[in-house]
């Protein structure tokens, strides 16, 4: 699969095969700054371990810039490569998309290479701030730490009467071992598959469902230490098995709804990450957001978010001190948050945004509150 990515990159970048090929280079970016108004830290996304806000204003936590190269080789075959650089990863370049696409017709498209798993309603363009009503999608519900797959996906779309249907199916490999070297992140290799189905009625009401499943190999010193400690103290076999690092079966499912009225848009997602026979918590998280177009240029929004994480297969190990530690690290937790913000169209390709978010969480009987103010400039070119 690495070869495919390389080939896609070569096709998009090489001027030698320029004959009938149509090239385009486009870019986007979001300069996002913020700070917390209390003493707590706020991590805006599980994916970017290093990115966080504290009491001093920071531009590094979420700011990112992207460039996309596309080559239309024939009217059906094309190559697409996107490079993103983020403050949270010390501006190291990433390849969220690098694939070759083939459009069989207006209804069926195939892609192979580096793709994004269709976990969320805004999976595909969550980094393109300009295309979003918010500074970022409510990321409490975007809880899978990785979504770059090396694989194949097929998208089919068709309309019947007032309904438009889109089905996407994918299979691939997720290799996140490089994140082993990031602060607090753990490395994973996953073989997975999934699908999503969305139907839109009369251009205003959309419902989407997605299901994805994979076997996860973990590279985590913490898990390995817990595993060997349980063996050493003679914990029950089932508990030892629940801390294995190999082929941990996980599934992610999500339900989303979007309703567009004249000036008002309601968007909601409810996502669930579950683990089969493992100590990892089950995460059930969602949000609902109301976005109102006051004028052609100004659209404020209000978002409510809730996380309900329940304990996984945690059983008594026979050692109360260890049990307390495991419950603290892997037990149930509840988080609620609300955010108020808005988007202002500064120029035809530049939007200004601001948001205030207040979050309170209760994990292992420890309450935690953080209030964050963020401002953003989103642009496309």
């Amino acid at each position, binding site marked *: 699969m690495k070869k495919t990515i390389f080939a896609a990159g070569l096709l998009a970048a090489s001027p030698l095969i320029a004959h009938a090929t149509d090239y385009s280079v*486009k870019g986007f970016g979001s300069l996002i700054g913020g700070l917390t108004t209390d003493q707590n830290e706020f991590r805006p996304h599980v994916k970017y371990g290093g990115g966080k806000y504290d009491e001093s204003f920071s531009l590094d936590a979420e700011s990112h810039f992207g460039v*996309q190269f596309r080559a*239309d080789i024939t009217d059906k075959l094309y190559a697409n490569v996107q490079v993103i650089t983020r403050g949270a990863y010390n501006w190291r370049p990433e390849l969220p998309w690098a694939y070759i696409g083939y459009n069989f017709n207006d209804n069926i498209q195939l892609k192979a290479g580096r793709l994004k798993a269709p976990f969320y309603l805004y999976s595909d363009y969550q980094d393109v701030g300009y295309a979003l009503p918010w500074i970022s999608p409510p990321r409490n519900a975007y809880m899978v730490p990785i979504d770059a797959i090396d694989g194949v996906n097929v998208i089919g779309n068709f309309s019947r009467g007032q309904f438009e249907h889109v089905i996407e199916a994918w299979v691939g490999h997720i290799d996140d071992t490089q994140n082993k070297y990031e602060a607090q992140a753990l490395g994973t290799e996953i073989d997975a598959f999934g699908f999503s189905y969305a139907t839109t009625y009369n251009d205003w009401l959309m419902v989407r469902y997605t299901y994805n499943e994979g076997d996860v190999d973990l590279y985590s010193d913490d898990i390995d230490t817990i595993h060997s400690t349980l063996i050493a103290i003679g914990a029950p076999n089932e508990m030892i098995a629940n801390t294995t690092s190999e082929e941990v079966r996980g599934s992610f499912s999500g339900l989303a709804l979007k309703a567009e009225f004249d000036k008002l848009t309601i968007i909601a997602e409810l996502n669930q990450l579950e683990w089969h026979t493992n100590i990892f918590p089950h995460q059930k998280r969602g949000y609902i957001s109301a976005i109102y177009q006051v004028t*052609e240029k100004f659209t404020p929004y209000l978002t409510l978010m809730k996380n309900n994480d329940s304990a996984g297969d945690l059983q008594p190990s026979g050692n109360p001190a260890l049990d307390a530690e495991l419950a603290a690290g892997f037990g149930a937790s509840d988080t609620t948050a609300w955010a108020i913000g808005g988007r202002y169209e500064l120029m035809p390709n530049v939007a200004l945004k601001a948001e205030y978010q207040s979050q309170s969480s209760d994990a292992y009987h420890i309450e935690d509150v953080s209030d964050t103010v963020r401002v953003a400039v989103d642009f496309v070119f």
Partner: protein
Amino acid sequence: MKNLLIFALFLTISFTCVAQAEVSVITHPSNGNSLSKADITAIFLGKKKTFPDGSSAVALVLNDATTDEFNTKLLGKSSSQLKSYWSKLVFTGKANPPKPVSPATMLELIKGNPNMIGFIDSSSVSDGVSVAGQF
């Protein structure tokens, strides 16, 4: 007072006329497809890349104010809504927006290529192109 009212009415009518210049959607004369408003909208929003007869369709837009007119009347979107719509498609690799050209280039390209579809202010329609619809 009456004169003033008539004058105001006249202003309103002429203003409305200016704001609602007619847009003609144009294709090559050999393009025999009969296009509904929905077909045209789908092609200009990148949802369809073919004409109803299956031949490939390449949309062009104008680099002047007629495009805003077209966007509002046919696509039902303001320019920033449309920009946001296209950035979703562009940065997920689904499609690129139609290329903007001058009115003269528009007519030249449509005259020379049966796969192209564009639009122009109805007063500028010339020989060599056929009008698929007026809006």
